C-alpha cells in the first residue's frame, strides 16, 4: 500500500500550495484514479464520453503513472482488457461512458465471466438526480450486467470510491476470477469527498470467502482414487493457468505417470513435447483423447468445467469412470458431471496437497493406447492437412509453419471459428501461458483487440493473432488503436471468403444449403495501409515461408492475409449431441 503523498495534493479542482498542513479533499474522479494507482494499475483501455468526462479530466493529471489507451469501440476496450488480464494474470481495466459506452462493453463482459477473466469495468452514469428519468445516455447498466458480472455496484457518493474500488479488485481477481462493473454517477465523479482520501486494500469480505486450500479429507479421498486407478486420465483446464499451477501439474503428472489432456483454454499449460501430454479434448480435439475418455476408469479434472463442447452427449459421457473434480468454484461441482471426489480449492494448492499423497506409478501401457489413435488421426487427418495436394493453401499449413518459425513459444490469440480450431490443433505450444481465445462465449471479433491487450501486457513476447475474414470485420476498427500504439502485433487473416465454421455445419448437417455464409470481402491490405499498418497477401504455397518471415521480422504491427482453401472442414469432429467415442474422422 505505497501511497505517494504528492498525489493527494493534486486536486484537479484548484491547485493549492503543497505546504497546506490540513489534508486536502479531492473529488471522486481523483479518488478513483488514485485508487487505481494504489491497486497497481498501469494501463487502462477506454473511450471517453459525456458521463465519464470528469474521470478523463483527472486522468490527464496522471499520464505519467497510468497509460490510457484510446480504443476505437468500447467492445475493443473490453477484449483488450481481457487479453491483458489473460497474459498478465492481473486485473484488466476498461473505462467507458454511460449508455452506449457501457452497453458496448457488454459482449466483452459476458466473454470475461464465462472464461473467468479478471476485469474491472468502470463506466460513467448520468447524475444521480437524473437516474430513472431516461436522461441523455442513461441506461440501467446495473440491471443489464447483473447476469454477466461477478459483482456490480453503483457509486453515487464520492466517499464510497476507495472502499468500492478496493472491493472490486479483490472480487475480480480472487477465487474464480471474473468481471466487475462499477457504475459511477457524474455527480459522484465531480463532488469533493467529505473526508480525506484513505485507501485500504480489501483482503476479505464477510459474504464472499473463496476457499483456496481444499479440505484435507477431500484431497485424501482423491488421492485414494488415484492410487487405486488402473486407467486414470487427467484433464486440465484454464484453472491451471489462472492458479499458476503449471509446475505443480507437471510434478503431479510425472509422479503418477497419468496421461494428460487439455481443454481448449488449458492449451499451453503443458508442452506438447511432454511424453504424458496426449492432446486436447472436445468437439474438434484429438481422436484418442475423446475415444479413451469413455475407456478410462478415473477422470482427474483440474480447473475445468465439463463444457458441452467437451462432453458431447452427457448421457453417454465417461459413464464408466469415477471423477475427481478439482475446482475453485463450488457451483461447478456436480453442475454437469457428478464428482465422486470433489476437491474445492485453488488448483495449485490442491496439487501441492495431493502430490505427497499419490504413489509413483507407471502407466506406460495405458498411455500407449493413445498412440494407436494418434497414428490413425495422423494418417487420416493431420498429414493430409499439413502436406496437402490441393492448389490452395490450407489453414493447418499456415499454423504449423508459424508454430515452427516461432518455436511454439509465441503468444497466439485465436478468434472464433475454423481458424480457431485449426490453431488449437496445429500450433505446437511449448511455453506456458501462450494461448488466448474466446472459449466459452465464442465471441467473433475477440482476437484483434485481445491480441493488442496481450501485447500491451507482455511487450517482450511475440504476439500473433489468427483471425478469420468474418471475425476480422467485427472489430476491424481496432487496427487504429494498434497503429496509434505502434506495438508490433502480428495479425494473420486466414481468408476463405466464408464464415467457415457455419459453412461446415451447413455442409454436414444442412445438406449444403449455404445460407448467408459467403462474404464479399474488402481489400484487407488496403484497409490496413489506410490505418498505417503494413501488410501483404499470400496466395501461393511457395510464398508462405517468406510471407511469415516477413511478418515476423517486422518491428511494427503487420497484417498478413493468407488466401486459404475455400471449403475445408475441421476434423476430427464430435457432432452436437453425439457421444465423444463416436468422434468423426471425416
Amino acid at each position: 500500500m505505497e501511497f505517494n503523498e504528492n498525489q493527494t495534493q493534486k486536486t484537479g479542482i484548484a491547485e493549492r500550495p503543497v505546504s497546506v498542513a490540513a489534508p486536502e479533499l479531492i473529488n471522486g474522479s481523483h479518488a478513483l484514479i488514485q485508487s487505481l494507482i494504489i491497486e497497481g494499475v498501469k494501463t487502462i483501455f477506454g473511450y471517453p464520453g459525456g458521463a465519464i468526462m470528469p474521470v478523463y479530466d483527472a486522468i490527464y493529471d496522471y499520464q505519467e503513472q497510468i497509460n490510457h489507451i484510446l480504443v476505437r469501440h468500447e467492445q475493443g476496450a473490453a477484449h483488450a482488457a481481457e487479453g491483458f488480464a489473460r497474459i498478465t494474470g492481473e486485473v484488466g481495466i476498461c473505462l467507458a461512458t454511460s449508455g452506449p459506452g457501457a452497453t458496448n462493453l457488454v459482449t466483452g463482459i459476458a466473454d470475461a465471466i464465462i472464461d473467468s477473466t479478471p476485469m474491472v469495468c468502470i463506466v460513467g452514469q448520468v447524475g444521480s438526480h437524473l437516474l430513472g428519468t431516461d436522461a441523455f445516455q442513461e441506461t440501467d447498466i446495473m440491471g443489464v450486467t447483473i447476469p454477466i458480472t461477478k459483482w456490480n455496484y453503483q457509486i453515487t457518493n464520492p466517499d464510497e470510491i476507495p472502499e468500492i474500488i478496493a472491493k472490486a479488485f479483490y472480487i475480480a481477481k480472487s477465487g474464480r476470477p471474473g468481471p466487475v462493473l462499477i457504475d459511477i454517477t457524474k455527480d459522484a465523479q465531480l463532488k469533493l469527498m467529505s473526508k480525506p482520501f484513505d485507501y485500504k486494500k480489501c483482503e476479505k469480505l464477510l459474504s464472499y470467502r473463496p476457499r483456496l486450500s481444499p479440505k484435507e479429507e477431500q484431497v485424501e479421498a482423491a488421492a485414494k482414487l488415484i492410487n487405486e486407478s488402473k486407467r486414470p486420465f487427467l484433464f486440465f483446464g484454464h484453472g491451471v493457468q489462472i492458479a499458476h499451477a503449471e509446475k505443480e501439474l507437471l510434478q503431479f503428472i510425472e509422479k503418477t505417470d497419468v496421461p494428460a489432456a487439455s481443454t481448449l483454454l488449458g492449451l499451453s499449460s503443458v508442452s506438447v513435447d511432454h511424453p504424458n501430454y496426449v492432446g486436447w479434448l472436445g468437439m474438434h480435439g484429438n481422436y484418442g483423447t475423446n475415444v479413451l475418455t469413455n475407456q478410462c476408469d478415473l477422470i482427474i479434472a483440474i480447473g475445468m468445467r465439463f463444457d458441452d463442447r467437451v462432453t458431447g452427449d452427457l448421457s453417454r459421457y465417461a459413464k464408466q469412470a469415477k471423477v475427481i473434480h478439482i475446482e475453485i468454484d463450488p457451483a461447478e461441482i456436480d453442475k454437469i458431471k457428478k464428482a465422486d471426489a470433489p476437491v474445492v480449492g485453488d488448483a495449485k494448492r490442491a496439487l501441492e496437497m495431493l502430490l505427497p499423497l499419490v504413489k509413483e506409478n507407471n502407466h506406460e501401457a495405458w498411455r500407449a493406447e493413445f498412440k494407436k489413435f494418434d497414428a490413425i488421426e495422423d494418417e487420416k487427418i493431420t498429414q493430409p492437412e499439413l502436406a496437402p495436394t490441393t492448389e490452395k493453401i490450407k489453414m493447418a499449413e499456415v499454423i504449423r509453419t508459424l508454430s515452427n518459425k516461432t518455436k511454439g513459444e509465441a503468444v497466439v490469440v485465436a478468434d472464433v471459428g475454423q481458424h480457431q480450431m485449426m490453431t488449437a490443433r496445429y500450433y505446437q505450444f511449448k511455453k506456458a501461458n501462450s494461448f488466448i481465445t474466446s472459449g466459452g462465449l465464442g465471441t467473433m471479433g475477440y482476437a484483434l483487440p485481445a491480441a493488442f491487450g496481450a501485447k500491451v501486457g507482455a511487450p517482450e513476447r511475440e504476439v500473433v493473432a489468427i483471425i478469420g475474414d468474418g471475425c476480422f470485420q467485427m472489430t476491424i476498427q481496432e487496427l487504429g488503436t494498434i497503429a496509434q500504439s505502434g506495438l508490433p502485433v502480428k495479425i494473420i487473416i486466414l481468408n476463405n471468403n466464408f464464415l467457415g465454421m457455419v459453412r461446415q455445419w451447413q455442409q454436414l448437417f444442412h445438406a449444403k444449403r449455404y445460407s448467408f455464409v459467403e462474404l464479399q470481402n474488402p481489400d484487407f491490405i488496403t484497409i490496413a495501409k489506410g490505418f498505417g499498418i503494413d501488410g501483404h497477401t499470400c496466395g501461393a504455397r511457395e510464398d508462405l515461408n517468406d510471407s511469415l518471415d516477413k511478418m515476423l521480422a517486422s518491428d511494427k504491427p503487420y497484417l498478413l492475409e493468407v488466401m486459404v482453401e475455400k471449403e475445408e472442414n475441421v476434423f476430427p469432429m464430435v457432432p452436437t449431441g453425439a457421444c465423444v467415442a463416436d468422434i468423426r474422422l471425416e
Partner: protein
Amino acid sequence: MTTYTICVFTENTIGILNKITTIFTRRRINIESLTVSETERKGISRFTIVIRHESREAVEKLVRQIRKIIEVLAVFGYLNDDIAYNEIAMFKISTPIGAKPLDIETINKTYKAWVVYWHLTYVIIQKTGTEEEIFEFFNYIKPHEILEFVRSGRVAVSKSPQTLVDYLPEAEWEYYM
C-alpha cells in the same frame, strides 16, 4: 413436483432482489412466493423463496448459484418437513344489510381467523396458516362475497437447533450486531 423453501441471507443493499431473481429466470424456475425482511441482525436481509420443482438436483444447483452472488452470506434449501412455516392472508368480505350473517364463532374457533376491521358494508378477516389452511378457509368463506383476497409469501424457520452464526463460524458478526 416437490415444494422447496429457499432461505437466502444477504447484505441489505440495493438490487439484491434483482441479482437473486435473475438466477431463477435464467433457469426457467417460477417463484411461487417471495418474502423479504431484515433479520435479527442489522443490515442482513432474509429472503424466503418458495418454488416447486421435480428435480432435487436442479434445486441444489440453483442454491449453489445463488450462493455465488457476492452479497449473499448463506443459502439453505429446505423441504417442508425441515421447517416451521406460515403465511398470512386477508379477506375483504361483503356484509350488506340483509345478507347471511357471518358465523364469527366458527371463523374464530374452527378456522383461527380474526376480523381485523369492520365497515358498514364489509369486514376484513385475517387468517394465518399454511397454504392449505388458508385455502380451506377460502372455501369456507367463499359463499359470502369475497371483495378482495390477498395472501403473503411464506415465512419459514428451520427446525434445526443451529443458528445462522453456526453456519458461518468465521464471520465477523460483531459488525452486524
